[in-house]
């Protein structure tokens, strides 16, 4: 009996400091490794995601959102490439002694990081890669806060049928991790909705010449063209699509990169009325929290990188990830066991929407923001849905 009482007293004592809202860091600091691409062809995204993560960490420490712990971010350049991501994850864990991990951008790199996280028993929150089940497949130490492809494609299929009248559809993808899962899910969804897939093309992702594929569109006469290709290739595709003068409505699954896309192909996208899906777009329909974050990040990017920047979904996803980690530390502490248990029962509203995790440790899509946007002839963007 006595020993039992002592245990309860001990637990109470432990809990006491957090109740008293001690100053952040009073319980020490937690090192969180952040893996993102700073070199290679996706460095344009990593540069601004890094600043978004820094803003989140500063807010957490300023407003003591991590239950008395101070968050210290350690960045690793994983280059959106599996081998670099694997080595960087190992470095952050064994050299920098990080206790938690956030990352990576490209799915194939996240696969590698998830493997290391489970081997070294260091919890990982996959914040951007959207391939299905990366967390689920890799093991108990990985969570995935980004909306998985299968959920976003279900949303897209539903919205497409609402906004467009079409019976036949052409599906064109790139053979990277993103494109191939998209194609599998979308073909099934379209067939389930009774639409005829008249053209189904998978293009080699190093092949920047889309002309051959585009010439097949008029021949197969689809009512709607659905495309899922990466940011760089998307700009290429839209340019060649407009050049070829094809008027079939075009929907691109890939969220727009910031300035690059609009500046380069805004006019052409406007000419063909390109519709795109996005988890987040800077627009007047943003929530106050979103507007506040956008202002903060764009100001910071202007100051640090002195270049104008339109906030993208990837920036928001990275910001939210750091906040999610802080929230889980507050409720379960930085040690793996408590942290993972807390993360599993997360219920929190952040910039992109409401976050909860299912039993496969993937985020539930219901609460998350999802919009359709159309490029107007003058190149500007309007939110459709």
């Amino acid at each position: 009996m006595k020993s039992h009482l002592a245990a309860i007293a001990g637990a109470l004592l432990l809990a006491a400091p957090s109740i008293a809202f001690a100053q952040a860091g009073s319980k020490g600091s937690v090192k969180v490794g952040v893996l993102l691409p700073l070199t290679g062809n996706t460095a344009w995204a990593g540069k601004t995601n890094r600043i978004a993560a820094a803003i989140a960490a500063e807010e957490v420490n300023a407003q003591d959102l991590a239950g008395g712990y101070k968050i210290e971010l350690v960045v690793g350049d994983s280059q959106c490439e599996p081998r670099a991501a694997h080595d960087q994850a190992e470095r952050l864990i064994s050299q920098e002694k990080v206790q938690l991990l956030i990352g990576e951008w490209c799915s194939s790199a996240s696969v590698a990081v998830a493997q290391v996280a489970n081997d070294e028993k260091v919890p990982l929150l996959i914040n951007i890669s959207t391939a299905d089940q990366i967390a689920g497949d890799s093991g108990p130490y990985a969570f995935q806060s980004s909306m998985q492809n299968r959920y976003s494609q279900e949303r897209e299929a539903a919205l497409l049928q609402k906004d467009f009248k079409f019976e036949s559809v052409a599906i064109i993808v790139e053979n990277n991790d993103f494109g191939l899962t998209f194609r599998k899910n979308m073909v099934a969804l379209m067939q389930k909705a009774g639409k005829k897939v008249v053209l189904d093309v998978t293009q080699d992702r190093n092949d920047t010449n889309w002309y051959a594929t585009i010439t097949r569109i008029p021949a197969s006469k689809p009512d709607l063209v659905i495309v899922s290709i990466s940011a760089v290739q998307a700009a290429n595709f839209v340019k060649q699509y407009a050049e070829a003068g094809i008027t079939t409505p075009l929907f691109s699954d890939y969220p727009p990169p910031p300035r690059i896309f609009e500046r380069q192909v805004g006019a052409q996208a406007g000419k063909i009325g390109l519709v795109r899906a996005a988890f987040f777009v800077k627009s007047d329909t943003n929530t106050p929290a979103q507007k506040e974050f956008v202002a903060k990040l764009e100001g910071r990017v202007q100051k640090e990188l002195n270049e104008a920047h339109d906030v993208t979904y990837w920036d928001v996803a990275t910001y939210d990830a750091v906040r999610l980690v802080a929230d889980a530390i507050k409720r379960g502490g930085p040690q793996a066991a408590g942290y993972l248990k807390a993360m599993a029962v997360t219920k929190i509203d952040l910039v992109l929407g409401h976050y909860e995790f299912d039993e496969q440790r993937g985020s539930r899509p219901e609460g998350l923001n999802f919009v359709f946007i159309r490029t107007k002839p003058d190149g500007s963007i309007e939110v459709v849905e």
Partner: protein
Amino acid sequence: MSSRILLIAAFAVLAALPLIFGTFWINMVINALIFSLAVFSINLLTGFTGLLSFGQAGFVGIGAYTLGVLTKQGTPPLFAGLYGVLLAMLCGFLLGLPAARLKGHYLAIGTLGFGILIYQLLTNSVDITRGPMGLIGIPTGVIDKQTWYLVMLAVCLTLLAALAYIDRYSALGVILKMVRHDEIAAQASGINVFAVKLIAFTVSAGFAGLSGALFAAYARFLTPDLFNEQESFRYMMMAVVGGIGSPLGGFVASLVLTIIPEGLRALGEDNYRLLVYGTMVLFVLWFLPAGIGGLIERQRR
């Protein structure tokens, strides 16, 4: 005698490394040791018979994915690794049939074509290899890094000794080098040049497949990008920087060219690291025509 003591001392230090450095560096060295097997395969092929191959990463990929896919389907890792090496050797044999008749640059580009073919197969056969999504959680069990390190060190050193023996002391070494220096004279001495080249291709593909299988068992994740033509160029670079005829040079080069760029990461995340890598390759080629191996050879003599 002194050089032998030097060698043993050096290897003793190498064996003790894990105790000194943290697991990150050990992971780096293990990767470098696995790399060096693929560099060995080039040493064996090019160093001995003079044949060029820019498709070695294709064989590494075959070895790796065979182990990956089979272990995920329940085959015990050892057998899966064996099948991987055998499949790589079969592909080496099939590629060797036309390749053994090719010369110089035609052979280089022909094998490059083979490498690209394998890479595209791995990327596009989604239902077997999950393509770009990558194969994750290959159940080969998490053996701790120290044992991996010692096992890999032992494998590399035995191979080094075997290749050195063949190169310097065995009759096979003379035959292989005859084929490299002068095929017509070799034929006139009763050497079936075509068969020697074919066997060299097959055995070298086997080594590359072994390197792939070991990588799959160690890293336990695979994506096709780990086996594209840039990787084949990287193996070739290490073999040449190491000194094409010298397996020891190749071994040292694969350690140096894996660890130094990683060490330079402190220079900042962007491109200085690769810039230094490129210039390092150039400097070695300018000042050490026979590569690091040539340097070691000169010291020893």
